[in-house]
């Protein structure tokens, strides 16, 4: 449903082109489909390549020639159903691939066709070229982003200043009443006043930081690296944090989900078998892995991932930073209320969503050209009970 609308909306956007440049019509549509196919394939890419050889699952190059479409649709939607139903090809494939089940995909028939079309038209050379082009850019961006974004070292520490100032006050008081070294008493007064002012400033700044955990980077029970998974292997965030589009929680993947890949990938690049073995142990002992939660908001804050990821179309990086460069997960944003509100005041709402049709006045203003964009605060983004209830 959703993707249908997505295509529809894009079609409307392209309406002007369609009328003037009839010739390019077919091209445009194919382009849209290709884009969607690419999006869909990000999930598949965790285990499959197209022409890049066998990963966890088989190489999908030429898959359209190997099997007929109807069978492929069924298999992609729910491979295990076919295996259990005793489908010959499915059972054989399952055995060939070390009995690793392909998780069911919640796709419509049309979506699978788009996906298959993408696989069919996929030109490996082009992508290789593009990745070759991208690669230096990526390393450059990594180098640039890391120091500027993760200014952990820049986080000012006031502890020493506070103690120095405190000692100054002590000295001033001691001199005032006991040693009487400096005769002019206003000097003491000035020193004390300045010191109190500095201390007050430090207290205010520190107090604001209470409960905030910017640059929090706890050690996890398993040395899981987002850099390897999301960065190098390019696994889509949503593959593991799949509920981010439908729930308030982004979701931590279950051990079983890890096993989708790690039944085959038994040794890591950095830690070898040591860390991956912990997944197997979790399964063996039937104890879930107790991850340390990095991004915490207070209990009285209701934050919904679905609202921001699915509806607001905000990419994960905007709040979580360059996760794909982090070996150990770190909180990049301070997650303070000011930070939330700043974004709500400047960020544009996906106003084409039919939900906002009820905001008739804003629509009128846009249609009459009075308003060019609708920010979140205009649709209640500054209300207390958007987040606190």
């Amino acid at each position, binding site marked *: 449903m959703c993707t249908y609308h997505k295509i529809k909306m894009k079609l409307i956007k392209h309406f002007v082109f369609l009328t003037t440049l009839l010739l390019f019509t077919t091209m445009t549509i194919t382009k849209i489909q290709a884009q969607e196919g690419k999006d869909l394939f990000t999930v598949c890419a965790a285990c499959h390549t197209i022409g890049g050889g066998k990963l966890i699952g088989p190489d999908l190059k030429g898959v359209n020639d190997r099997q007929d479409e109807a069978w492929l649709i069924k298999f992609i939607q729910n491979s295990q159903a076919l295996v259990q139903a005793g489908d010959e090809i499915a059972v054989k494939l399952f055995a060939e691939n070390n009995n690793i089940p392909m998780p069911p995909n919640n796709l419509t028939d049309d979506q699978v066709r788009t996906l298959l079309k993408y696989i069919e038209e996929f030109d490996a050379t082009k992508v290789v070229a593009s990745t070759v082009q991208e690669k230096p850019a990526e390393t450059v961006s990594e180098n640039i982003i890391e120091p500027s974004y993760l200014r952990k070292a820049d986080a000012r520490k006031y502890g020493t200043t506070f103690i120095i100032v405190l000692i100054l006050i002590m000295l001033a008081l001691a001199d005032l009443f006991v040693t009487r070294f400096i005769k002019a008493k206003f000097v003491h007064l000035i020193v004390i006043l300045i010191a109190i002012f500095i201390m007050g400033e430090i207290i205010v700044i520190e107090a604001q930081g*209470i409960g905030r955990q910017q640059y929090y980077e706890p050690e996890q029970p398993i040395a899981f690296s987002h850099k390897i998974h999301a960065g190098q292997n390019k696994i889509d965030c949503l593959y593991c944090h799949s509920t981010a589009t439908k729930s308030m929680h982004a979701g931590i993947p279950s051990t079983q989900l890890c096993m989708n890949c790690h039944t085959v990938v038994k040794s890591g690049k950095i830690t070898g078998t040591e860390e991956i073995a912990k997944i197997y142990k979790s399964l063996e002992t039937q104890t879930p892995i107790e*991850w340390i939660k990095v991004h915490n908001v207070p209990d009285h804050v209701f934050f*919904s991932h679905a609202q921001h990821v699915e509806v607001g179309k905000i990419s994960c990086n905007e709040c979580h930073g360059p996760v794909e460069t982090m070996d150990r997960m770190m909180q990049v944003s301070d997650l303070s209320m000011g930070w939330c509100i700043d974004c709500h005041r400047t960020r544009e709402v996906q106003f084409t969503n039919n939900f906002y049709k009820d905001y008739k006045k804003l629509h009128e203003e846009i249609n009459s050209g009075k308003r060019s964009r609708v920010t979140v605060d205009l649709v*209640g983004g500054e209300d207390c*009970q958007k987040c606190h209830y």
Partner: protein
Amino acid sequence: MKKYWQSLEDYQRIKTNQEYVEKPEPEFSIEGMSEEEKKGKATRRDFLKMLGFTVGGAVIAASCETPVRKAIPFLNQPEEITPGVANYYASTFYDGNDYCSILVKTREGRPIKIEGNDLSTISKGGTSARVQASILNLYDNARFKTPQKDNQEIDWGTLDSEVSSQLKFISEQGKEIVLLTGTIISPSTRKLIEDFKLIYPGTKWITYDAISYHAIRLAHQKQFGAAIIPSYDFSKAKLVVGFNADFLGTWLSPVEFTKQYSAARKLLNGETSMLRHIQYETTMTITGGMADNRTPIKASDEKVTLLNLYNEIAGLLGQTQFTISKPVVEVHKLAVELLENKGESMVLCGSNDEESQLIVNAINYLLGNYGKTIDLVHNVQLKQGNDIEVAALIERMNTGNVGVIIHYNTNPVYNYPNSQKYVDGLTKVDLKISFAESPDETSTVCDYVAPDHNYLESWNDAEPKLGFYSMMQPSIRNIFETRQAQDSLLKWIGSDQSYQDYLEKYWEADLFAKQSKFGTFKAFWNQSVHDGVFISEEKLNSNFAYQEAELKITEPDKDNAKYELFLYEKAGIGSGNFANNPWLQELPDPINMSTWDNYLCVSTLLAEEFGFKTEDVALINGNFEMPVLVQPGLEKNSVAIAVGYGRTTAGKVGDHLGTNIYPYMTITNGLKKLSGSLVSIEKVDGKTYPLALTQSHHTMEGRSLVRETTLEKYLKDPASGNERHAEDAKKNTTLYSKPEFTGFHWGMAINQNSCIGCGNCVISCQAENNVAVIGKQEVRNRRIMHWIRIDRYYSEEAENPEVYHQPVMCQHCDNAPCENVCPVAATPHSSEGLNQMAYNRCIGTRYCMNNCPYRVRRFNWFEYANNKDFDYNMNNDVGKLVLNPDVVVRSRGVVEKCSLCVQRIQEKKLLAKRENRQLMDGEIKTACQASCPADAITFGNLLDPNSAISKINEDPRNYHLLEEVHTLPSVSYMTKIRNKKS
């Protein structure tokens, strides 16, 4: 102008034309407190000490590290569970008394809320306060955590082997095995009991109800040849006459009746007719309060009145009359009116008295109501208790003939009138077993307890009416080491089958054939589990021929020096099986607004005679003392006491509250009756007992807030009774600019014609919004936390007043007095018209509370969670599982109030956005609205001219509370209309 009053003090004031004087409220000052209450209050020095300590503590706390929080995923994520998204499962509520088809809301695998099931044709999406509160029983820490032998823990293996061998031994001896159960409406369980009988041939199955309806079955046996309770259809009736039948509150199937009753009395969308209701009753009930005409009668006069009514009708129809003494109340007019509504009327009687029920049936037969408003075919399966068999059983127990007794869903040691005899009998029984879910008076004297699952952990089915099936499915795995009673029975007959399989097999073998929609059983089963209900297509026996029965009256005992005692069930506590439920204990009684106690209700005249005031103490029968509550509308020479109190082994919440009055039930002709006892009363001078009444809380300073009219006047002028609305609208003006809303403006409307005051919304809100229970003393201190309260007003004479129920929650004023006075802007107005409350911003000045004219704001005087002084559900880990994770648990020192269920608004808005569509009208339902059995509440967007709420706002009956102060509330009310005939 008609004057309304809430308390008897008010009433006296109106009578003597005195000015309203506001009493000092302990909520705001300690002046109004007694010496006892002042104890423990801080002095100024204490305050300073505390201040220093708090500041010091805060500094230390602030310098501590933030605690490490963990995120623990599933090992293997179930496909249907998305953390953060609720799942709903259709199921069935049945506690031995009431039936309700429900949806269970679960979050992360734990049930947190009950909603009504719209697919049910019986409860139609409604619930009762008890159904709402039943979820708390699941998380009751007092529940049995393991099986027991002689009140010591044992394991299931030992219990099974010991019980099985003893059962076998006693059975071989030829001694009687008795299954004493509450009414079982599960067809599978009934079949299982038959199977049990096959293995243990000496088994007798006896059904026992705490509140018996046996007389209705006996009367139908005599007159229609079948011991049934017919089903009643209020939607087909134009006139209903009740005799001590509290059918909206407690009688038979209140949720079903309320749905039908209120639908017939809405007067929305230009309807011009409404159901007329006349009630004759002893004490004031919510049913009597709703009646268009109500007459207080003595319980002992009921039969005379009924037979006179029969005679009048028979006379008008030219049929034989019976000779009797002359009537106490005039019934000729009633007879004429009933005949005018032949076939569209209904006469109901709530007494468990065969003579009364025979007369009622005869009247309904004369009126041609059978087959129209009264349905014998789809008869009610509830209340199958057989008083005569129970009495015979107790005799046999005392003679030592009974070898085994198994209690399932019964507690006769607590609620049998002659419970001592039952206990004596039990000592002569070799093996006593109880299936009790949590300790009760009976289970403690049993040898073995094989604790049953809570109904939310169980598989079962139900057949509340013949041909109407209902499915119960577990929504959580058993929390404690309990086992479903049916599984225990299966085990003891040596079967390896689980009851779940047994149930499925039964449906396959028996019910699958009763439908033609599904070709395969699997499809039929899945759909039934999904829907929760199934209506059989089977042709039922409809052959019921009427036979005349002799109508006679046995004159009841009379003693002019004594008073007739009438026992009744309260809407919340009922028969007392939910006594350990703090939500129900703190639910104010809809009529007298009392919590946490039972008491002796006396009429205003009797109070005058004895010099009784509420909270005085009376000595009853020279035997026991009880606090007195003066109840307007009670028959003048009767006294009334609620059953369900005085439990001794219910758990820490329910124990030793009030007095157990079941011993004062009478048994006449073998039938247990709630009336019939004669008691003497004396005043105990100088002694008082504190009652926690919410009655005079929240008085609205004498301003009349209820608007009402009669049907006659309404038909002439739809705005009748609501003339002030137009006047006030003209006068109103303000200095502030009118608020503007861009997308949504949430509004709510309450139809006072529908609201019966049952309290379902109060508990529903409490469950949804994590509202704290504060206990009797704090209720007395006027600190009750309910976000929605139901104000009750009386009008006319105190001997027989008219009653009004008015639910009041935050009115979400667009010109809110509370918002202007908050020094920290903790309660601003939202862009959608909600009056918001930001708890983390509130510093507890309570200015807003002082400035709110509706008194809907609540202050957290204490930390109610994790506080051993408030040892209710929020003080232990099990009890906390019921909390709604979408709503924060408020801490000490902040103000809270109704948010119009903002979490539900946000949830549905997000859903609409994700589905790329506009919100639909009626899609968002607040907690109070969703399960209201009377459908009295409407919620929606006031900016949408086509929404239901906008249409109601344009209705001439619509008005706001305190319109004259121009607060511009978003909540509105509709004039109450009574179908009165003089």
